[in-house]
């Protein structure tokens, strides 16, 4: 176990792209935490005198159609994206792991019900289901829009995690070390927490990393359509939509949120890929 994880770390550190992706993620977390310190203005401060101003000394990346500082909104936007990504993943993990373990370990009715429910959920294309949920439960307040987005995206994403965990449990359950643990009198709880869960950590970590990218993308899409995170909170997707009328006259308005979103999603995807290669010993040379 220890030797294997050292090997994984070495594999991870050898790949420059994965390292760069990791650096971007660290930078993103840093930005999200210290947004109030880094941003020259608050995300909703409107400079009425300088609406749609070009990048300059006063506003480093210019201002939007409301006179809001683009740089500040981009920096705070990292906070919004990351919060949505992490909260949704946390909910997804709780639901997905517990139901996946129940179905895989207990089997029987638990398993049948889980498989049929996830089948029905998979029948809706992911994004469509999220659009439906958020569109119908339209939040009453800007702060409420976070809650709606959390719940909608978690509801859409948990079946994938549950299926992954169930599959892992089914294959691990047959292994000799689980048999051995049961033979020496370990209870169900001990078998699950001490023997099953630690051994499926790698695929779960990879899935969570890639899922964060998808969740951030989904949030941006919902916000782009006008049904995600509501203003004044800064969502990169919303900023891109707001900038569309000024595409030719003020192209920077659409460029920066696009770059921020693209870089973030790309970083999580590359990191997920790198982790998969590093954690899956079969792929290592």
């Amino acid at each position, binding site marked *: 176990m220890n030797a294997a994880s050292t090997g994984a770390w070495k594999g991870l550190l050898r790949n420059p792209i994965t390292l760069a992706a990791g650096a971007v993620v660290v930078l993103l977390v840093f930005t999200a935490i210290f947004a109030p310190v880094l941003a020259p203005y608050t995300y909703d401060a409107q400079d009425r005198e300088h609406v749609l101003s070009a990048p300059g000394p006063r506003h480093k990346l210019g201002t939007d159609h409301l006179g809001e500082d683009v740089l500040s909104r981009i920096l705070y936007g990292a906070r919004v994206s990351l919060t949505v990504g992490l909260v949704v993943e946390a909910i997804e993990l709780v639901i997905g792991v517990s139901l996946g373990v129940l179905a895989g370990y207990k089997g029987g009715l638990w398993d049948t019900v889980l498989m049929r429910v996830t089948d*029905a959920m998979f029948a809706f294309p992911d994004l*469509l289901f999220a659009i439906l*949920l958020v569109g119908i439960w339209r939040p009453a307040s800007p702060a409420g829009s976070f809650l709606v987005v959390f719940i909608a995206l978690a509801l859409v994403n948990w079946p994938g995690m549950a299926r992954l965990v169930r599959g892992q449990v089914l294959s691990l359950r047959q292994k000799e070390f689980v048999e051995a643990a049961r033979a020496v009198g370990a209870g169900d709880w001990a078998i699950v927490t001490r023997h099953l869960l630690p051994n499926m950590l790698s695929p779960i970590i990879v899935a969570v990393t890639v899922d964060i990218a998808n969740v951030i993308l989904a949030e941006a899409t919902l916000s782009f359509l006008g049904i995600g995170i509501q203003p004044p909170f800064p969502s990169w997707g919303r900023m891109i939509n707001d900038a569309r009328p000024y595409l030719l006259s003020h192209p920077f308005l659409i460029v920066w949120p696009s770059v921020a*979103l693209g870089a973030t999603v790309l970083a999580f995807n590359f990191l997920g890929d790198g982790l998969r290669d590093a954690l899956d010993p079969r792929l290592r040379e």
Partner: protein
Amino acid sequence: MWRYIGHRLMLAVPTLLAVSLITFLLGYFAPGSPLDIMAGQHADPEIRRRLAHEYGLDQPSWVQYGRFLWGALHGNLGRSFMNSGRPVTAIIAEQFPVTAELACMALGLAILVGIPLGVAAALSRNGLLDRVTMGGVLLLISLPAFVLAPVLTVVFCLKWRLLPTMGWEGPTSAILPVVVLAARPMALLARFMRSSTLEVIRQDYVRTAYAKGLSPRAVVLRHVMRNAFIPVLTVIGNSFGYLLSGSFVVETIFSVPGIGYASVDSILKRDYPVIQGVALLVATLFILVNLVVDLLYSLMDPRIRYREVA
């Protein structure tokens, strides 16, 4: 074979029922009464009562669901809260063909470009082409349609004035929406085709094909591509779901008068029957497409058939 098809069709029935229930509940538990949307909050109670009766909203929930399901089975998806109560099926019949056209063209483009690219990348494993392709794949997966679209619009419509920025008239107006919608499935197909090809070229029968003196071209076309394509079929089925929901975004960006555009509009106006109708249609189509994909899969790879029924 027939036994397998019957088995799969029977499995689709409970899924479709669950889908209809989920769709119904979405509208049933939506906040605010549909009556407020149709008549306004301060409407005359008599008008509200009449509307409630007309739309069956005064019935208990299970009766409403029964009617919804019965109607859906008979091609009746209820009536829009707006558009002077137009039947939802009429709205779908008018706008779905546009979306179907857009989605099919995008799928065609994705397959035509993605599959050869994936094979080429696999054959030059770790070479320049492979690295560039795989980098491009991650880039396209990470960039959403609404980032890709403005970039292409600026270049092709505003700078070079080659293509129209929006609308759905004439073949040139279709180019950008199709390309933008195809980007992600194309990238996914290239990626899966690559890993599937890598798997296949290690097999003994490929070595045998080389050993018996077949030209590399013949080996790739006849042995590698055919076998590598089988698992990729599933990805094509899944892409179909993305194409349908991605059309929501792409149609909104380019003002394409399809079902996605109409749905986003209905969502913003809280026109629940239209949203439910579209959701039911898309989910049903998605289930059917995946069913067809699974059947094709079992036709091409007999091992699947025996395993699942036994």
